[in-house]
């Protein structure tokens, strides 16, 4: 009798744990219905999606290439969320991270790679941190809502990038050719992140991101600073009673969040594009939030979540070409997955709570 209830409890827990994963196929089924309405063949579409994501060595590497910035941004989002602050400023932080890494690499193109490369990563990280610190300090000092201020910082970063890439930082070759595409010159070779697989874009930044995920895990759960960030995020009032300066740690959480997005920007420039160009942030600032949530706001959970969403991004491209659906459909599909995952998680939590929550 007691054993039966133990087993039932375990089954319940397993069910609640896999519920968000089950949500993905459900979203895909609805996506299939929409495809039917669009008079496209869902079978062809989804085959293309899967093939696009994992069908060949190249597509697998592409998936990982996309997963890398998602993971880095997602780690930053995880830290911020754990500290109880919401960072919508990923886009802007990516842009300033990329801009500053580019500027540094182009300005000191004579420096040896052993110095220039890490320095560019560092400066990108620091600029992202700065972009996060501004809303952080505004929140800590003046109580400014971080959602609004991070969005404003996005706009500032975007305008800054527009100006720099059309003016001071534009590739001289573009002026000569008269094409005037808004992009910087190619970075010096020694500032390129090494490629891991020949003939692909997969670069060392992916390994860096994996290492970072482990470091963030250690940071949040093994250090006193991580402990404080989590305490502040879960119960600011009790943290205050315990003598933890709450605003300081909220500001720190969002600053660290910015740092990771800034690093993502630098990595994207140095590993994939090798020059700064418009649209480099590619929405990673937002999809990174989704990856973090899907990863249960856990640094290690964010790894598979990023790969999944990276795969969707890559596969969706191929699907779009295969069945000629409007690109909005891809966004719709992403939106559906997010919607189902998030609501299934809420449902699972409610279910668990009803089953045995206390208080």
């Amino acid at each position, binding site marked *: 009798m007691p054993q039966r209830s133990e087993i039932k409890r375990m089954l319940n827990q397993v069910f609640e744990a896999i519920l968000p994963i089950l949500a993905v196929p459900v979203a895909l089924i609805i996506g299939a219905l929409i495809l039917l309405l669009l008079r496209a063949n869902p079978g062809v579409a989804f085959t293309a999606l899967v093939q696009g994501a994992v069908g060949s060595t190249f597509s697998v590497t592409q998936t990982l290439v996309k997963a890398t910035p998602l993971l880095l941004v997602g780690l930053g989002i995880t830290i911020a969320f754990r500290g109880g602050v919401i960072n919508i400023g990923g886009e802007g932080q990516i842009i300033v991270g990329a801009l500053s890494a580019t500027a540094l690499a182009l300005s000191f193109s004579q420096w040896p790679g052993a110095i220039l490369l890490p320095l560019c990563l560092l400066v990108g990280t620091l600029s992202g941190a700065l972009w996060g610190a501004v809303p952080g300090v505004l929140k800590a000092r003046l109580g400014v809502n971080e959602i609004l201020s991070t969005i404003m910082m996005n706009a500032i970063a975007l305008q800054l990038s527009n100006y720099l890439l059309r003016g001071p930082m534009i590739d001289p070759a573009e002026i000569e050719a008269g094409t005037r595409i808004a992009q910087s010159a190619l970075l010096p070779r020694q500032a390129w992140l090494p490629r891991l697989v020949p003939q692909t874009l997969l670069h060392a930044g992916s390994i860096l991101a994996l290492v970072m995920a482990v470091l963030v895990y250690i940071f949040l759960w*093994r250090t006193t600073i991580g402990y404080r960030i989590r305490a502040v995020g879960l119960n600011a009032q009790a943290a205050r009673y315990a003598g933890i300066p709450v605003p300081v740690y909220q500001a720190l959480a969002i600053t660290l969040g910015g740092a990771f997005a800034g690093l993502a920007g630098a990595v994207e420039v140095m590993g994939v594009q090798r020059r700064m160009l418009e649209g480099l942030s590619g929405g990673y600032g937002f999809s990174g939030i989704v990856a973090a949530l899907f990863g249960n706001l856990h640094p290690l959970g964010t790894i598979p979540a990023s790969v999944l969403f990276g795969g969707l991004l890559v596969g969706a491209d191929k699907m779009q070409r295969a069945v000629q659906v409007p690109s909005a459909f891809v966004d719709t599909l992403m939106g559906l997955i997010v919607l189902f995952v998030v609501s299934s998680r809420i449902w699972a939590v409610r279910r668990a709570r009803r089953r045995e929550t206390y208080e």
Partner: protein
Amino acid sequence: MSTQVLGLDGRLPTGQMRIEEMRMVGIVKRFPGVLANDHVDFDVRAGEIHALLGENGAGKTTLMRQLYGLYRPDAGKILINGVEQHFNSPQDAIRAGIGMIHQHFMLVPSLTVVENVALGLKSSRGILLDLDRVEKRVRELSEQYGLKVDPKAYVWQLAVGEQQRVEILKALYRGAALLILDEPTAVLTPQEVEDLFRTLRQMARDGHALIFISHKLHEVLAISDRVTVLRDGRVVGTRPTHETNKSELAQMMVGRPVILQYERPPAQLGEVRLAIENLVVGGDRGHDAVRNVSLEVHAGEIVGLAGVSGNGQRELAEALAGLRPVKSGRILLCGKDITHEPPGARIALGQSYIPEERLRDGTIKQFSVADNLILEDHHKPPFSRKIFLDFNAIREISERLVREYNVKTPSVDTPVKNLSGGNIQKLILARELSRRPKVLIASQPTRGVDIGATEYIHQRLLEQRQAGTAILLISEDLDEIRALSDRIAVIYEGEIVGIVDGPSATAEQLGLMMAGVREGGQHHLEKIRL
């Protein structure tokens, strides 16, 4: 009053069908590592007040949550008027005529009383709220059961006792024929307790069935018809109230005799550790909640701060903790002016604080027991080296503290939200006392704590006094204040009306002072009851 027609047709004066009999049979509920209810039989009948007693963690709340549809029993049956019930949610239980007053109220502060009552109800006008009708009904009910409250007031404006009345009104409005009250008196002043009891008696007379949970034996003896005692999830016994007494009940609960009498060697006064000078602190509604308070606490003494709830105790405690700004005056901790220092600075100087709102302010409920035990000192050895937490040390020390302070928990990794109220209090006590504080501020340290644990906490406080800690004990429980304090300061409307010698103070003298009569002053207020 007595012209009330008893529901011969099986209906209550509220129009609801009576619950002639509710029976819980063989209820089993287990949580990971805990058998919270072990084949519990419990019943209550119309017109009866059945008290449920038991130590912290005995399983009272768990049992009631199953009756209210919040948990599903692992085994056992719930029968209402002989018909088996299957509740999947509180909505099901409410539909069956069951209401529950939780210890933590579930009202929306920014809404009015009427709006709170109407919340989540179907309206006769479709999606439009029919607030006028609700208000009329609320007035009727509040008249009928002596539940005085202004239906148009906003909930945030109400005192705790009034909020509780709103909760009861809400339950009655929804047609509760059986009402569960989980520790309703823990947060009430003695006067409010009397008002509540009058309401409960009236409800019982009208044919409601009532379940009453409290740790205060005298209340149980005063209000109930029958008492059931739980221990470790099992029923120890059920007695008609008039056939039992305090010591038998205490013995049944704890399993050994309990004496709330303490050895109290004379105080060995040391230097002044905490000095409060002409302190003025603002309250939440713009007024001065603490007015010109001066008080000293020496090493090795317990100073009790007595007063009816809402007379500035909370604001004073928060100012001392560094959580509420001081308007004027000074606070000296071990000789250092800390009036405007943040909480961390006070903690570093050796001040410990046991907050009144233990779940909200004293713990992070999602954190484990161990993580909560290091809340203040996690950045110091032995809990951490440089910035890295030392898990072995944390585990070892937590396990020792849990053992030493009798915190009932499956393990130190259990999240605190799974502990019962009294055990959370013991955990906070363990954390605060194990820091060997120079000054301890204890706010309502035994509120909602069972008698065994109360005795234990009192012993610990006295030990701490012997060890030379300066203790400020803020409590609304006069028995507690008198049993422990060397000196008693009485606060009324934010002012200290007098400081008297602890051992020789009488309840009457303190009662008068708590009503604002100055020490030795004239008897100018109307008679007060305690």
